[in-house]
């Protein structure tokens, strides 16, 4: 069975439609969405309505949470003053236009979803805002996967797709404050972290949408890159009164506001 996993749509309705057409063409039978339905892009309500109408199981992303709870960003959300200013502007724009039923829908989204030994989360299972960077310490990365008892952890949030295989992981646990200072070691079978990239706000140098198809039969992970009419989204960004620089960055395959690059940072939200 083919499972499509998509993330970080960010109000880009054109990109979402292109991805939905593509995954249908690829024969995907199930779809999971890792959140960030809104924020930066010009069609937040339309994107949420489409996801709801298709009844796609969806986790809550950091932008979805912010639009419900209000901005409460850790420093990792904004690596620069400029990114912070642009992020706040986009938040205010989205917050002013989001329909109340859409906000209610975003509020009830879960932090994680499970399907057998597959886990789906936006940033990490611990936090929508945490970045699981490909260079992240292997022990910490393995801990994130084991904590949810998963074989494969699908995440998004960085907007840059990758597959990380954690092989032959060995963990040693030493219990202090016990009479014999017991030490217990155990090995884990192969685990994987799959970042599915971004549908609506890519950061890989091209404007194309990315998502992942996981084939349970062959245990195959395929990264899909889908062209779409991004100029339509760029025009809508400007028409809707969002900053034209957002349109330029989308056309360049740059995120609207840059994200953190520090793989050792632990999110404090």
């Amino acid at each position, binding site marked *: 069975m083919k499972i499509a996993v998509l993330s970080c749509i960010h109000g880009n309705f054109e990109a979402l439609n292109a991805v939905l057409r593509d995954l249908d063409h690829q024969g995907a039978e199930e779809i999971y969405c890792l959140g960030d339905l809104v924020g930066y892009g010009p069609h937040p309500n339309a994107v949420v309505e489409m996801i709801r109408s298709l009844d796609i199981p969806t986790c809550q992303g950091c932008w979805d949470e912010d639009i419900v709870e209000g901005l409460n960003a850790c420093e990792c959300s904004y690596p*620069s*003053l400029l*990114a912070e*200013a642009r992020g706040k502007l986009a938040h205010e724009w989205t917050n002013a236009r989001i329909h109340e039923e859409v906000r209610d829908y975003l509020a009830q989204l879960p932090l994680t979803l499970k399907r057998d030994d597959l886990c789906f989360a936006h940033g990490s299972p611990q936090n929508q805002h945490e970045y699981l960077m490909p260079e992240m310490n292997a022990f910490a990365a393995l801990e994130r996967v084991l904590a949810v008892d998963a074989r494969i952890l699908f995440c998004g949030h960085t907007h840059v797709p990758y597959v990380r295989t954690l092989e032959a992981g060995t963990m040693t646990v030493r219990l202090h404050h016990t009479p014999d200072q017991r030490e217990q070691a155990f090995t884990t079978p192969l685990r994987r972290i799959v970042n599915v990239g971004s549908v609506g706000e890519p950061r890989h140098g091209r404007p194309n949408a990315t998502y992942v198809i996981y084939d349970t039969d062959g245990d195959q992970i395929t990264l899909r890159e889908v062209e779409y009419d991004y100029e339509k989204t760029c025009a809508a960004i400007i028409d809707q009164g969002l900053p*034209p620089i957002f349109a330029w960055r989308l056309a360049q395959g740059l995120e609207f506001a840059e994200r953190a690059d520090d793989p050792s940072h632990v999110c404090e939200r």
Partner: protein
Amino acid sequence: MPKTLPHPPQPGLYLVAGPPGGGKTHWIREQLLTHPQGSAYGSPSQSGFCLDLAYLESQTPIQTIDAAQLVEVAYWAQQRPVYLELGFHVDLAALPSFPEVVPCSRIAILPPGVALSEWHSWADDLVVGMGPMVPQLPNQVQKSSLTGEVFDPASLDVVWHELTHGAYGRVQRAKGLFNLADGSTFWFSFNAGQPSHFEELPRPRCLTGRPAGLSGIEVMGWDVDAGAIAASLTASCLSDELLHHHQAQLRDAQEPVATLSESIL
């Protein structure tokens, strides 16, 4: 027939012209460094502040000539080499004539491979500069003073990338003098088709209050959205509170830590 420039430069008037990004200021800098005492520099085609002057002043001591002093330029040129940098937009045919008694050299700094231009017929000397020849000269020159402003480096990096990759219009040439949060001052220079050049200027680091030295940005191009550039630059500057906090941390890091024995004594 071009004449040979005296080396080291002799007293006289040196009019330096050429297209944007061709290396006029760079060439003048080389001359000033070979004759560090007593040379003078002016950029009469610049209105308001002059970033090139601020850059040259950071490199070597020079006598500057402002617009009001131009009437005395002949007198100055009898005493020392005087370099007048002429912007690409200056009408060379409309330049005033200078007294015969003042030796005057007209020097055109041109990108490699240029065989014909208005500067060819004007110049006494042709110097091969840098960069590609611009098929069409920019129709916009945007200048903004940023004196006193201090930038978050990560933000400035983004704005400069956007500026030099067409986010705010087609840019042929951009230069900037920016104060950074660590107290340093940097010179940014960009010519279309070439990578940007970044250079820390030998100015004292400012760790208290706002830096007083000139800083600013100059952009030459077509359909340049000055308002959008200003908005991005404004969002990249440190507030008073943030600057104060940052500078306090930098000063603390500079103070020598007393050893245990010193503390006891």
